[in-house]
């Protein structure tokens, strides 16, 4: 365990060092990413104002809170892309990882976790600007802040492992783009990324409860800005823990099959 923690610390440190070397690129990337939630925010705020101040129980200020917190959650959700597996195999990077006594999943979790630390630091001034511009209604309790802190990392872990599983399809076929696009379309609709799930039809909300998407977006955001009861907050963390366990177990099964399939091609 001590060695594993040391590995995580060293890898996160390395990731932070690398990301601070590319701080300009990271800032431009974050600013570009802001466009998406700002558009949603402007549209929904306009709809809320046109409908007497609120829509679906959300005021303009609550939409602002939702989408500003969205920007942090979105950054926390950025993990190793499934598209990267083909590159990783062809460049020989995966072979290099397999030769070491450390599961490659730990490398990805640790590396991107370090990246998050750098991102959170860089996000703060952007969040401050958005708060001044859009005046969100945000008064979280200490419990909500506490749960939120763990929920964003829970979201990060769930999405890491779901996209890992998706990416491992590459071991069997490289014709995977369509599968990925389908996944991302579903995620957009069922996670709360496009619109707060409370505004979706009941059947969509029910469906999303049985899928991991909501626990990577909606729940962390709601934990901070929503009106969840303490019970719902703890239950949400419990659901995230369950999805982490499920996705990890499934991923491990697929990984073992993938290794048997692996042809170690490339450089």
């Amino acid at each position, binding site marked *: 365990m001590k*060695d594993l923690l*040391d*590995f995580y*610390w*060293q*890898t996160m440190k*390395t990731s932070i*060092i*690398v990301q601070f*070397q*590319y701080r300009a690129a990271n800032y431009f990337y974050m600013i570009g990413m802001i466009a998406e939630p700002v558009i949603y925010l402007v549209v929904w705020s306009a709809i809320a104002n046109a409908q007497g101040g609120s829509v679906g129980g959300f005021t303009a200020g609550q939409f602002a809170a939702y989408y500003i917190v969205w920007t942090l959650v979105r950054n926390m959700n950025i993990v190793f892309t499934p598209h990267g597996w083909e590159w990783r195999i062809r460049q*020989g*990077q995966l*072979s*290099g990882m*397999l*030769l*070491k*006594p*450390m599961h490659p999943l730990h490398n990805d979790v640790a590396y991107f976790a370090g990246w998050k630390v750098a991102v959170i630091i860089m996000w703060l001034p952007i969040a401050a600007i958005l708060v001044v511009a859009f005046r969100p209604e945000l008064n979280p309790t200490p419990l909500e802040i506490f749960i939120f802190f763990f929920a964003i990392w829970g979201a990060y872990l769930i999405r890491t492992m779901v996209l890992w599983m998706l990416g491992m399809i590459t071991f069997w076929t490289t014709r995977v783009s369509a599968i990925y696009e389908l996944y991302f379309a579903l995620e957009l609709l069922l996670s709360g990324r496009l619109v707060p799930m409370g505004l979706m039809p009941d059947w969509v909300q029910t469906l999303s409860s049985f899928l991991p998407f909501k626990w990577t977006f909606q729940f962390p955001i709601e934990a901070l800005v929503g009106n969840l009861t303490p019970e719902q907050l703890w239950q949400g963390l419990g659901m995230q823990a369950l999805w982490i366990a499920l996705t990890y177990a499934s991923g491990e099964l697929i990984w073992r099959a993938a*290794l*048997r399939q*692996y*042809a*170690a091609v490339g*450089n």
Partner: protein
Amino acid sequence: MPPIIQVNQLGKTYQVPEREAGLGAAVRSLVQRKYREVKAVEHISFEIVPGEVVGFLGPNGAGKTTTLKMLSGLLYPTSGSATVLGHVPHKREKAYLRQMTLVMGNRNQLQWDIPALDSFELNRAIYGLPEAEYRRTRDEFIALMEVGELVKKPVRNLSLGERMKMEIIGALLHKPQVLFLDEPTIGLDVTMQRRLRQFIAEYNRRTGATVLLTSHYMADVEALCKRVIVIHHGQLLYDGDLSGLTQRFAAYKTIGVTLDEAGRDVSAYGEVVETDGALVKLRVPKAETARVTAQLLNDLPVSDLTVEDPPIDDVIERVFAQGNAGPEAR
């Protein structure tokens, strides 16, 4: 001494999708995929004892890299078995991975954007190396490779040769007992090749590590390996001493005779392989060398005469060209 590497009838067969060119073939391949079998490695067997440095030779596509990948645990064998350090490689047990390394030439495993020192630190954490022991080993290797100033530069700013030095250091920090080196000197200049060979030899001497090395540069093999294993079309052709390779596959000598004048016809004495003014090189069967030498000295005005074994490159080329089955037992 019990072997540290045991390979028994090891084989690897790939199923490779096959399709013809053209739109029609592309559409047909959607519903009816054709496959062909590629036997990359076929029933090879050998043993290596601790401390040996063995050259693993073969032309491109012979199965060398596939064999190394099976022995390092990257690939599952299709048939046969292998044990290295008492472990089955494809099980990829941590205890095994901590004791071996596979270095592939021209492959970058270090972090591109940061100094090599930081990547070494990461390797320390991956292998769980005690701090003091790691620093001692790291500093020893840095001194051996003479890269004291270079380790502080981002890897992307290093030349190919400098990067390769760092790769080797990074790959050996955990002091593996078994090294699989797949063309480690490829693309390097002569000086760098020599430096790497010296480092490998020194590492072998200091630690008693076992080395299985593939290379297309015979200078690597001649400098490091007493024993070679030759593989061709996935099968073993030869396993034995490097000198025995010459005896088995190139039973001839090259006689270089410098005459007083150019233009003489010496084809009666042997196969003329080269003529350069008054210097003529003849290839003669080994058993005939003494007789032909005596005849040349007796019959012709010879000003100089040399007798040489064929260059090892020529021997290897003949081995590949013959492609005979049946390894010679040690």
